[in-house]
């Protein structure tokens, strides 16, 4: 009964999405206030029914309704309750429903926080989002219905053990908040194209939405990286895996977009470019969603197993991306290019920032899609490994980070180069000296370490100079200003983490019998053997590793090797001692003869800085949103513009 309720709700939501997608857009075009007024109630009603459907699916999982195929495939009666709930979006169908649900949340948020916007503008934004939602609902109902039934099964085949983790409870929703959040920026961009109006107030309205989406995406990617680190048992934090690349691409374009939006708001420049980036960020979000959730990545042949699904995705992508780019080509000239600026100015720095970010995106896109294309065309199987991405990213991102220090101190329109050089020479000199010397505190001096430290220190120094300069003036609190600097500091912190762990991590794989000790980077690990453990839906072995430093006991780590009962899947659960300047990472390999085990040990300097920095970036973004000027009234916005 409940699954049918969910199914009917989805159908009603589909119809409402159609109304929401057509009437307000038509009303805005023909200046019909009655049709425009449909936007808000239609969006809210649509969200209500999507929410009912989502609730129905969650209820089916929580109540172990194994007559629903989706539940049988992705859950198990002995699965802990919280994972039964998260299994709701553990499958392709469920994650598409979650996507639509979050799209509804963003749309309702737009209807709630847009009282100061002109009605026709809200109608267009909500209308575009309704069309996107219609596409997703149609996809769900026609090819990926999560409520399909079958004769009652005895029990489910369990959720993939990798997903049975607290990190997976929050990671997908947060990541989707980011992906889907770019739909608001996309809708604003299409609104500008449709109406031909793109002024400073347009930029000021779309900025907080874009920054919010970007901040969520940052947190989502950060959680995915951290999860991969502790859950996959290999100790890596980024693998340049297509799944990761799929989330990195919209993030890179989104980063370019929030910078370009700043220029559009402050200087009225980069207008068409900003619109283009907004389309790009959302298109890559869509591409990422489908790449990850349609199964194309694990095998291009999965298109063949469900041709309807693959065909729908291709058509949907073609309509959304092709349609919006066509609109862009037709209407971009109306939007205009914007004000002039000098060769050396904050605008030109931000332009280089955008070019570098887009080039980075392009190189990730090439490395991710090229193997898929070759395979799909039957031209052979290749893979593009981490060395490619690493060798491309270091030279692209280094100047980008250097500019992140310089940009906030540069004036709009034209930079007085001698004056800026004078202000920064001591900071730059000190960063260079410190960057050259600091690596000597480690065992080896490496040029890349110096580069990383230089970039991080450079950002830190310029942030201090910039903040001090502002405090000396009478300018008051600006959430936007301090948010930006916090985010830039986050970049510096992440750079330190990446640099240190890439250059100085130590790994040991070895056989350890009970009582064996091994010393690594001053830490001594003593293997105390294994004991049996039994979890709710798994059995396994728990190893004991006593860690000491200079003879003083520090901690005891318990890495596990589990076998999940329902799926029979073996699984490595690592044990980590987290620290501010180093992590100690342990994982069990296999049982060898005579009670010995193969064991994997890592010493990872500064690895948590990678995620601390990402959190600072996101916090900076959230802080910037609270800026007062994003809440100025319609009238005031016009006067300022």
């Amino acid at each position, binding site marked *: 009964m409940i699954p049918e309720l969910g199914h009917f709700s989805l159908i009603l939501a589909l119809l409402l999405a159609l109304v929401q997608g057509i009437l307000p857009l038509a009303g805005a075009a023909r200046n019909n206030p009655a049709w425009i007024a449909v936007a808000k109630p239609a969006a809210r009603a649509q969200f209500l029914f999507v929410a009912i459907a989502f609730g129905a699916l969650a209820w089916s999982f929580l109540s172990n309704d194994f007559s629903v195929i989706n539940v049988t495939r992705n859950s198990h009666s002995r699965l802990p309750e919280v994972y039964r709930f998260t299994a709701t979006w553990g499958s392709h169908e469920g994650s598409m429903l979650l996507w639509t649900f979050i799209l509804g949340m963003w749309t309702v948020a737009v209807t709630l926080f847009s009282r100061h916007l002109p009605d026709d503008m809200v109608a267009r934004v909500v209308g575009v989002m309704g069309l996107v939602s219609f596409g997703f609902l149609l996809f769900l109902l026609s090819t990926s219905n999560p409520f399909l039934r079958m004769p009652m099964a005895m029990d489910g085949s369990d959720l*993939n053990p*990798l997903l049975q983790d607290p990190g997976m409870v929050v990671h997908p929703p947060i990541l989707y908040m980011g992906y889907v959040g770019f739909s608001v920026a996309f809708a604003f961009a299409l609104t500008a194209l449709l109406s031909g109006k793109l002024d400073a107030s347009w930029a000021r309205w779309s900025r907080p939405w874009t920054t919010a989406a970007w901040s969520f995406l940052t947190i989502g990617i950060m959680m995915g990286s951290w999860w991969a680190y502790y859950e*996959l*048992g290999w100790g890596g934090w980024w693998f340049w895996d297509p799944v990761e690349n799929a989330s990195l691409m919209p993030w890179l374009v989104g980063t370019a977009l929030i910078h370009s939006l700043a220029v559009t708001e402050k200087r009225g420049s980069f207008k068409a470019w900003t619109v283009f980036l907004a389309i790009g960020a959302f298109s890559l979000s869509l591409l990422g969603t489908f790449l990850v959730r349609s199964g194309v990545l*694990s*095998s*291009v*042949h999965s298109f063949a197993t469900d041709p309807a699904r693959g065909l729908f995705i291709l058509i949907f992508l073609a309509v959304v991306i092709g349609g919006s780019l066509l609109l862009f080509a037709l209407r971009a000239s109306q939007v205009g290019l914007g004000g*002039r600026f*000098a*060769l050396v100015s904050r605008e*030109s720095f931000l332009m*280089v920032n955008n*070019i570098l970010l887009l*080039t980075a995106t*392009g*190189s990730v896109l*090439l*490395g991710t899609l*090229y193997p898929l294309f070759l*395979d799909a065309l039957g031209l*052979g*199987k*290749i*893979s*593009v*490994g981490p*060395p*490619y991405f690493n*060798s*491309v990213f270091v*030279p*692209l991102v280094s100047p980008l980070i250097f500019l992140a220090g310089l940009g906030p101190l540069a004036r709009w329109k034209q930079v007085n180069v001698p004056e800026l050089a004078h202000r920064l020479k001591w900071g730059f000199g000190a960063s260079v000296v410190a960057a050259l010397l600091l690596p000597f505190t480690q065992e080896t001096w490496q040029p890349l370490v110096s580069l990383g430290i230089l970039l991080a220190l450079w950002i830190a120094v310029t942030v201090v100079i910039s903040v001090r300069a502002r405090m000396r003036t009478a300018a008051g609190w600006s959430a936007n200003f301090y948010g930006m600097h916090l985010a830039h500091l986050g970049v510096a912190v992440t750079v330190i983490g990446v640099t240190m762990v890439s250059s100085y991590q130590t790994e040991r*794989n*070895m*056989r*350890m019998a009970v009582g064996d000790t091994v010393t690594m980077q001053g830490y001594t690990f003593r293997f105390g053997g294994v004991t049996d453990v039994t979890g709710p839906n798994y059995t396994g072995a728990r190893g004991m590793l006593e860690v000491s430093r200079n003879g003083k006991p520090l901690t005891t780590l318990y890495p596990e090797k589990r076998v999940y009962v329902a*799926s*029979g*899947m*073996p*699984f*490595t659960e690592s044990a980590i001692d987290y620290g501010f300047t180093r992590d100690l990472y342990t*994982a069990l*390999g*296999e049982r*060898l003869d005579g009670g*010995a*085990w*193969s064991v*994997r040990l890592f010493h990872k300097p500064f690895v948590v800085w990678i995620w601390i920095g990402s959190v600072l970036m996101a916090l900076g973004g959230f802080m910037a949103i609270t800026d007062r000027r994003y809440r100025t009234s319609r009238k005031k916005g016009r006067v300022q513009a």
Partner: protein
Amino acid sequence: MKARHKKLILIGVVVAALGAVAALVLNAFQSNLVFFFSPTQVVNGEAPKERAFRIGGLVEDGSLRREADGVTAHFRITDTAQTIPVTYKGLLPDLFKEGKGVVAEGRMNSSGVFVAEQVLAKHDENYMPPEAASALEQAQKAQKTVVAPK
């Protein structure tokens, strides 16, 4: 300097920078592509001698043997037509099992042993790496075409 000249310089700089970046990206791309070969192709000498590549198929039953250090493994990868001996130092992934699909990345050494730097097995019990699946498929097709003319 006139505004037009400045604009020209700007465009020139951007074009030059983009050219340099494109060269960098394509060069890195070219030198880091890893190609995939099935055991049959390796035996036929199609795989590169100097470069790393990927090999895939099934882990042959009964072929896994560990050295006394506990972390050096020897096994054979087969596509049912040909087999290639592989050696790997490190912890094998959870789903590595005899008779199951596997993909390894590494190089051939002078004595015809594939020295793997990485062994990949995806995180799903019933999942067959697509590379491994296609290696098996090709080998089966090849055998059929040999058998058929009789």
